[in-house]
């Protein structure tokens, strides 16, 4: 085919793959499609992991129930935790960055899109391999999401489930490492003209911090699961303490940063949502950026707080570094609160989720200081107090922020509006459900209920709290169904989304919904970039010129 200058060919000039076909999606080189595949896959897996949680909650409703056998319960909590961490929250965090960051920095695509697609496929196959453990004779892995040896060695947990778990983790974390690398490369090198680093939106900065942590920490996970794989072949190596404690150090060296990988992009999303619906510039941009980077760097130094009871880690040092996290976290809260206090608030569904994030995540953060204090952790570690703590950070915090982001960016990605009524129903069900589920767990922990137990006795005195928790989990399930209904309705009976339905601030709202292949076009050009809120600049300019004219 030849084209001559000046003559326009209105038909698609590309033979072979059709853009909208299945292959067009699965072999796409468009960062938006790869991002949506990643995010969509992780949301489907959220259903799977959530389903496992519901089964566990059913088992724990009353003492001595027999919904699940010991071994099945153990597989369920292992797969629930592993799926949530390796296959849901982490991929969502990195995938939403892949979708949004090129748009926000005015780049036509991610750098190295084919490597990015490779990473999606690694993630997908990893998830499938890990889940396929349920079809093995031995059942799925049941050593917990951090797979401590010697328990995870072939001597104490024989069978394919653990092998498949190791392979799944290796594949998908390799994928996430690659994806984080290409996105970070894009941010650092491929920004549009005028988009200086300090004009990037808060969300893009949160992705910079996230992906730096991924690069610093995920290779260590690969080494750690390599050690586990060694123990599958030579279980004798774990009769030596150095391998056991060494594994724990390696694992948590990955394990703490990954907690922030599952947190930063969501804080970034909350910051964007708050600023948009407060109708004002985000307060304290520079301090926030600095605090994110400080937070990320510091996160590499706190891993030992998971090992206070091992007697083999410098507990005071890790307590110091953990408590130092109060500084960046405090700055973030200050800036987010100031944005809310100084704004004109509109209560859309994304805004509600973002506002609820503030107090709910705070509970997780404040109890985090408690478990970061060795003298308290000696009691709280591996009890339901800890279960409550991290579910407040991850479920009541990050998951709420995740849905703030989903409700916020769904119109951009799909060109359809979600229904506000259903969104608000989802929100209120989840506020009630989340707190009913996880608040009683603090009391359970203080009363001595260990985590990872499939049942308890009537005389233990754990019954009431567990009953409340299960009722709350039921509300969570109903809320989840409402969300699915919302998506189905939005796709079946579309309400078309304009380019900027929210009066938002950042570049992705300057282009069409959904954006064209290379994000910006003649019709939707990149607006001039003079700050971290270019669309707000335009609006203010318009207003002032109107004021002058009038």
């Amino acid at each position, binding site marked *: 085919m030849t084209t001559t200058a000046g003559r*326009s*060919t*209105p038909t*698609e*000039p*590309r033979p072979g*793959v059709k853009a909208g076909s299945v292959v067009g999606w699965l*072999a*796409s*080189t468009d960062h938006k499609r790869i991002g949506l595949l990643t995010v969509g896959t992780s949301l489907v897996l959220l259903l799977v992991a959530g389903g496992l949680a519901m089964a566990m909650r059913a088992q724990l409703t009353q003492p001595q129930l027999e919904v699940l056998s010991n071994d099945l319960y153990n597989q369920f909590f292992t797969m629930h935790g592993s799926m949530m961490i390796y296959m849901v929250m982490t991929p969502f965090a990195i995938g939403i960055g892949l979708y949004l960051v090129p748009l926000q920095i*005015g*780049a036509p*695509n991610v*750098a190295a*899109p*084919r*490597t990015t697609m*490779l990473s999606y*496929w*690694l993630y997908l*196959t990893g998830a499938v*391999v890990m889940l396929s453990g349920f079809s093995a004779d031995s059942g799925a892995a049941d050593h917990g999401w951090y797979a401590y040896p010697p328990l995870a060695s072939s001597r104490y947990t024989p069978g*394919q489930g653990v*092998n498949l778990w190791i*392979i799944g983790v290796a*594949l998908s974390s*390799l994928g996430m490492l690659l994806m984080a690398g290409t996105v*970070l*490369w894009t941010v650092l*090198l491929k920004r549009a*003209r005028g988009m*200086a680093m*300090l004009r990037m939106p808060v969300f893009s900065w949160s992705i910079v911090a996230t992906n*730096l942590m991924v*690069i*610093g920490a995920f*290779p*260590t996970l690969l080494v750690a699961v390599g050690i586990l*794989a060694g123990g599958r072949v030579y279980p004798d190596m774990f009769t030596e303490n150095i391998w056991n404690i060494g594994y724990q*150090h390696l694992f948590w060296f990955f394990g703490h940063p990954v907690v922030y990988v599952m947190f930063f992009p969501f804080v970034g999303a909350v910051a964007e949502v708050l600023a948009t619906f407060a109708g004002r510039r985000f307060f304290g941009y520079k301090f926030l950026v600095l605090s994110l*980077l400080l937070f*990320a*760097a*510091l996160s*590499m*130094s706190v891993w030992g707080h998971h090992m206070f009871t091992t007697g083999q*880690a*410098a507990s005071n*040092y890790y307590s110091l570094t953990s408590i130092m996290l109060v500084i960046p976290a405090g700055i973030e809260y200050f800036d987010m609160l100031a944005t809310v206090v100084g704004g004109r608030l509109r209560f859309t569904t994304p805004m509600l989720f973002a506002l609820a994030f503030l107090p709910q995540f705070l509970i997780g953060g404040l109890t985090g200081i408690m478990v970061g204090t060795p003298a308290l952790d000696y009691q709280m570690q591996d009890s339901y107090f800890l279960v409550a703590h991290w579910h407040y950070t991850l479920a009541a915090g990050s998951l709420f922020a995740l849905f703030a982001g989903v409700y916020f960016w769904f119109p951009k990605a799909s060109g359809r509006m979600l229904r506000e009524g259903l969104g608000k129903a989802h929100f209120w069900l989840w506020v009630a459900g989340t707190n009913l589920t996880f608040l009683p767990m603090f009391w359970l922990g203080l009363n001595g209920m260990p985590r990872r137990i499939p049942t308890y006795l009537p005389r233990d005195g754990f019954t009431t709290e567990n009953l409340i928790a299960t009722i709350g989990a039921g509300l969570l399930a109903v809320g989840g169904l409402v969300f699915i209904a919302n998506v189905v309705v939005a796709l079946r009976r579309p309400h*078309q989304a304009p380019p900027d339905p929210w009066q938002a601030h950042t570049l992705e709202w300057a282009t*069409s919904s959904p954006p*064209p*292949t*290379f994000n*910006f*076009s*003649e019709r*939707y*050009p*990149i607006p001039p970039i003079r700050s971290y809120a270019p669309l707000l600049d335009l609006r203010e300019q318009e207003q002032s010129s109107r004021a002058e004219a009038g």
Partner: protein
Amino acid sequence: MKSAHAVVGAWATGNLVLALILLFAFRPAGFIEQLLYIWSTALVAGFGVAVLLATRAGRVGTQRRQPRRAAAGIFAALGLAVGLTGFAYGWWLSVIAFYPLVLAAWLARGERLRRGTRPWPAALGDTEPAGPPRFVHYGSSLGTATAVPAEHAAHGPPAPPPPRPPHRLRKAALLAAGARAVVEMLRRRRR
């Protein structure tokens, strides 16, 4: 690229300082901890150096050269997955994994577009025609400015229909309401 240097530099120094605190203020600390610090700082710093080299090589700014398909990525991932599954089900699986990997390597070359070509639609915001049009390989070159078809998403939502001329009745009603408003206003003034 100054801020990028600052990011990576501050990261590395910050962690170095913390590692020194660990070493000197909180003895006895294990050698594993120190090794982990060095290793992760090296990883982040290594990425920083790679960014630096790319900057030096001028690979900065909007990237125009794009691949047109990522089938090689799929095959590479499948190959890796099958190969690693050999750990569970026997290493003979890695023999099978060999084929998708070779296929991926073979596909990888062809998927990259020639310099100066981009797949359809050629609608990059601030693109400038880059000299006379060159050989086109599965796409349109930057010089040819292929028009985006009318109904493509790149055009955004269709323009809203022009406002309908008001119906005669409605016109009359509007007139009446307008007159009322004027009268009302005048009355108020008088008071």
